[in-house]
């Protein structure tokens, strides 16, 4: 009955209640949508980074991390690949030979990271083959094919089928030069990556350095990012002599970025809740001041002050609950809509490429994020009602009952 009274009380002034419910709904919806946008941004950065190059986890020799020398190879790398492929969650594994070197055209040079790959394996791991904008992603038409980034092509003045010379230190320490011909030019979300990475066939590279097959880097791709721990931790345990790292450890800057996003999101949600707090307090205070005589009567006839307090809190929670449900439903709808259609940010492509972000942003918010938001709204409602409720229970029935 107390809840019935509280519920009916909030509809005594429909306009005012609807205004505060709308404020809660819109505020919550904005907060959730902003959070979803930030999560979408984060997803975009993670996914593009994982897709482009990183994979979900990588294996190197322990020495490789220090100097990244081509001689720091993974011992028995075929065994490692076999072990990784045993997991049903693995959708691709690629072995790479990694060299640091120079790429030169007739006019200029650029420092590059040369990846010697098996194109078929690499297709299962990274998405570079999908991002070739000119030419193709390797074929069998000629030897020493190279796939380079658009930015590098621009810097070196190269086009499809242009000749490019790679120079790097061989296994024996000598400088090796190799002429390659551009078969494809890719364009990813990161201009920095496009400027400093080239891909060649593993066999062409092995011929140049006159070596048997070896591997500096094994990259694994899984069905989803959630499976990383369950796959890479057993590998890490099995191959203790190797360095096995997941994407977060390989790109620590992403973790920092994630923490910044979370902080920004918390501040934003905090500001919304703070504004709501004042809105709720104001509404409830008006409501209490309009009912002074009624509170006087309730306490005069024997309603305990604690019950009056609970009644006002219930009124506020009811308002917030309705606003909260509406806000969540509204946010779910908007997030679902933009999550499918995306938000086109192509006008800012240049700037976004600095952060490895896709020009189309897909907002998304994990369901686990909603309960804490609901809890915060609940706490805000109670805090907002606290002062008006205290004001009500401090009324003296004898005087309150004669207030007109």
């Amino acid at each position: 009955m107390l809840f019935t009274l509280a519920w009916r009380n909030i509809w005594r002034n429909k306009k005012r209640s609807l205004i505060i419910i709308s404020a809660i709904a819109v505020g919550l919806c904005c907060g959730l949508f902003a959070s979803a946008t930030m999560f979408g941004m984060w997803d975009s950065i993670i996914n593009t980074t994982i897709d482009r190059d990183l994979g979900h986890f990588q294996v190197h020799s322990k020495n490789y991390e220090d100097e990244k020398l081509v001689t720091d190879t993974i011992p028995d790398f075929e065994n490692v690949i076999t072990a990784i492929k045993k997991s049903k969650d693995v959708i691709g594994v690629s072995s790479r030979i990694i060299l640091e070197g120079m790429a030169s055209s007739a006019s200029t040079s650029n420092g590059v990271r040369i990846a010697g790959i098996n194109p078929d394996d690499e297709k299962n791991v990274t998405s570079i083959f999908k991002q070739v904008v000119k030419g193709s992603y390797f074929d069998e038409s000629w030897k020493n094919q190279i796939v380079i980034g658009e930015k590098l092509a621009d810097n070196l003045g190269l086009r499809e089928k242009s000749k490019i010379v790679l120079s790097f230190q061989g296994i024996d320490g000598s400088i090796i030069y190799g002429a390659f011909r551009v078969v494809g030019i890719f364009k990813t979300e990161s201009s920095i990556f496009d400027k400093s990475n080239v891909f060649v066939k593993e066999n062409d590279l092995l011929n140049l350095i006159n070596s048997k097959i070896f591997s500096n880097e094994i990259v694994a791709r899984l069905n989803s990012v959630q499976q990383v721990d369950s796959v890479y931790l057993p590998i890490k345990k099995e191959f203790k002599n190797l360095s096995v790292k997941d994407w977060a450890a390989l790109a620590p800057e992403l973790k920092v970025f994630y923490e910044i996003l979370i902080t920004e999101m918390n501040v934003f949600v905090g500001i919304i809740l703070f504004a709501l707090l004042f809105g709720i307090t104001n509404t409830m205070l008006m409501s209490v001041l309009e009912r002074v005589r009624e509170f006087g009567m309730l306490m005069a006839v024997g309603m305990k002050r604690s019950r009056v307090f609970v009644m006002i809190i219930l009124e506020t929670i009811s308002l917030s609950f309705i606003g909260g449900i509406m806000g969540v439903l509204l946010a779910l709808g908007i997030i679902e809509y933009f999550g499918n259609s995306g938000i086109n940010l192509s006008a800012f492509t240049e700037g976004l490429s600095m952060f490895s972000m896709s020009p189309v942003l897909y907002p998304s918010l994990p369901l686990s994020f909603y309960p804490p938001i609901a809890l915060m709204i609940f706490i805000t409602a109670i805090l907002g009602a606290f002062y008006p409720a205290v004001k009500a229970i401090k009324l003296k029935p004898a005087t309150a009952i004669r207030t007109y």
Partner: protein
Amino acid sequence: MALIELNDVSKIYDGSAVPVKAVDEVTLKIEKGEFTAIVGPSGSGKTTLLNLIGGLDQPTNGKIIIDGTDISTFKPDELINFRLHHIGFVFQAYNLIPVFTAKENVEFIMLLQNIPKSEREKKAIDFLEAVGLKDRINSKPSELSGGQQQRVAVARALASTPSFVLADEPTANLDSVSAESLLDLMEGLNSKHNMTFVFSTHDQRVINRAHRIVTLEDGKIKSDVLNPTYQKNEA
């Protein structure tokens, strides 16, 4: 032992520069079953005296004993609980809960007393029937006339099965027909059920029907007499 006993009760308001003695050393006894009116001009201390008897205010000096319990030193929460179980209130402006129906208004008091739902629903209907409003149990206060609202207030006051009912200017907002009808109702409850009523009023209609008239002036009891009109009717 009297139902209501005031011994040298004073109430002084010292909020302003000059302390105001609203009730000045009043000693009064009201027995069970009385139908008493406290009268007097504005500022005579009627309302303050009624607040003190009703446990809505605390005396500065003196003792107030209700039903054998000294409530003069009760803390606010103890007073609320005491009022809930011992005193029924009827206010000048009806003061019903506007979002509740007549039945819910009556039932609410019993909810505060933690009476089970089925019992309080039945009792609420019985009380509304007793005040002649059985056909309006589902009407909200805004759908009732002033007289009907005050009858609901009486039913609500009775619902807590109090020791007595305090009525503060109960007829002030009513037309003469409604006022007489309400007085009939209260007088009937008094004679049939021996329910004690204490009014504060300056309405001559109420004064005429009261059995005992206590007149206040400047916070003191000026006179305390049995109503000659009532005595004549009784005779």
